[in-house]
């Protein structure tokens, strides 16, 4: 039998020392930001009933979920997403609370990726949910918080915003089957201009024309002008007007060079119901932040609740940005005889309370302690001794 006791499964990894610090630093900065804006933390179970993740509006492909069977034969899934469990909590336990609810989470999700793809199956995420609020103020708050979330770890980022309503309003005007509509959506999502033109050949009307333009509608303000020009109906026009007011507000806040428009953002159309956005940072080939409005999601949990929020892949960010980290190498190692433990630990407390990092020597001889300190690069050894009830401390400095 092959034994795998010395390795980790594909898609997982150990994070050591600097890697941990970097991740924790990213998480701390983000969660501190969330807290200062009135968001409260929730922690949900690492595994939940499979049904939580398979609602109509929020189906996660079953091949992406790690599954278990509980003692009663029911299917359990390792949390593949954070929004749905948080929504479950909001729709059940927090039902009587005065809305709006401002919630945040900081916990891992688990997803099965194709083998050897180099993707992580366990992904640390943090994010916010603003529940029970409709309208532009809620959307603005969430997008501005998304911008500030990336800003607190790097200056090199972009946020793109779109509105799923534009696509929905246009495709509704098209006479074709649901399968064709899905194919059109896929071509727009992957910016496959050639195939899109091809499939729309027979729709020689304003809607067909607008859909064909959709994947090219990304960039700055000019995109909104163009989108208004080609909008085939009132509903489409309204979504652009709404998007423009958000864009204008963000520009006034000073984010003009950080915000892009992309009307080709048409992923998960059963899930999103309004604005939709993603964030990118330098050195990461994939988006690191994604969010939007999903007002229908609560229905899966038997409640009615407007909802908007976003999630951030903190591990990808920790890998891509270089945050100033303090050096956590011990400043002092304390050598003592076990019978003098009280004096030694008191000395340690004095040093640590002055801000030094102290390690207690576990060795039986001062030579071993010196040797170890040299290898670890600890420059000071404090030797604690007690004679006739008087404590003496002798410091040695290594070069």
């Amino acid at each position, binding site marked *: 039998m092959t034994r795998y006791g010395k390795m980790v499964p594909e898609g997982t990894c150990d994070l050591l020392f600097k890697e941990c610090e970097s991740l924790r630093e990213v998480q701390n900065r983000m969660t501190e930001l969330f807290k200062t804006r009135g968001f409260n933390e929730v922690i949900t179970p690492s595994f939940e009933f499979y049904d939580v993740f398979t609602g109509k509006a929020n189906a996660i492909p079953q091949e992406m979920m790690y599954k278990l069977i509980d003692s009663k034969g029911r299917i359990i899934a390792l949390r593949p997403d954070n929004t749905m469990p948080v929504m479950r909590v909001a729709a059940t336990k927090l039902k009587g609370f005065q809305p709006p609810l401002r919630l945040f989470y900081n916990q891992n999700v688990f997803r099965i990726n194709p083998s050897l793809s180099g993707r992580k199956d366990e992904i640390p995420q943090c994010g916010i949910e603003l529940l029970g609020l409709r309208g532009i103020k809620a959307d603005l708050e969430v997008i501005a918080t998304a911008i500030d979330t990336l800003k607190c770890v790097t200056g090199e980022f*972009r946020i793109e915003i779109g509105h799923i309503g534009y696509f929905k309003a246009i495709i509704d005007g098209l006479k074709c089957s649901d399968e064709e509509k899905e194919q059109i959506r896929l071509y727009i999502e992957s*910016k496959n201009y050639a195939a899109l033109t091809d499939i729309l050949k027979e729709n020689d009307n304003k809607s067909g024309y607008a859909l064909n333009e959709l994947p090219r509608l990304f960039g700055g303000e000019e995109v909104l002008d163009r989108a208004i020009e080609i909008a085939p109906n009132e509903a489409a026009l309204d979504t652009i007007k709404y998007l423009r007011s958000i864009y204008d507000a963000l520009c006034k806040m000073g984010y003009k060079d950080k915000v892009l428009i992309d009307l080709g953002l048409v992923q998960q159309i059963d899930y999103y119901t309004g604005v939709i956005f993603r964030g990118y940072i330098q050195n*990461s080939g994939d988006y690191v932040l994604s969010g939007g409005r999903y007002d229908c999601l609560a229905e899966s949990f038997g409640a009615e609740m407007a909802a908007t929020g976003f999630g951030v892949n903190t591990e990808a960010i920790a890998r891509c940005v270089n945050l100033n980290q303090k050096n956590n190498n011990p400043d002092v190692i304390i050598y003592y005889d076990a019978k003098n433990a009280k004096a030694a630990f008191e000395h340690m407390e004095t040093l640590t309370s002055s801000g030094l990092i102290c390690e207690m020597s576990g060795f039986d001889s001062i030579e071993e302690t010196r040797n170890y300190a040299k290898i670890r690069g600890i420059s000071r050894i404090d030797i604690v001794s007690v004679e006739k009830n008087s404590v003496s401390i002798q410091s040695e400095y290594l070069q």
Partner: protein
Amino acid sequence: MKPLRIALTKGRLEKDTVELFEKIGFDCSKIRDKGRKLILPIPGTDIEIVLAKAADVITYVEHGVCDVGVVGKDTIMENGHSFYEVLDLGFGKCRFALAGPVGRPFFTGYNMKCIATKYPKVAREYFKKRGMDVQIIKIEGSVELAPLLGLSDAIVDIVETGTTLKENGLEIIEEICPISARMIINIASMKLKKEEIESLTKKIEAVKEANKQ
């Protein structure tokens, strides 16, 4: 800013792409005279060319270590996940087809058919669309052998002229889809290097238009 990295599929697509790049005014002398180098600059631009195997072009672009890739639609259908597929470059044309021994009907009978292919995902998708259960066997080289040796009932493979099929007593049962070279873009690069990428795709589209006339 890092240079714009373009991954090219080694071999015939590489030659066609180099010709295209020369038409848009890039100095490709370093690529034509590359020796064994795998990363080559285009002098006078902030562009680097990376030479890779087809499926690796997709991997490099998906992970964002290359911003742009040139790769066949066949490879995209078999290996693609998430990137933008912005241009049909119009060269490297051929098609995916289902082929079997001449004169032997394929869609009749109730026994489960066996399909040999280098492209299991493409084959699976095709039969899924037709609502047919088949057994798929992955073959690495000359797939035409499999039905001849009696391992499979038919094959799913790339067909260019059909000569290989004919010479081995096989014929096309049904065409699956046309194939040509595509330009793909990493989704983050599209947003972070928008100007550079747009200027490149515009130049290529201009050359394509000129060729049409």
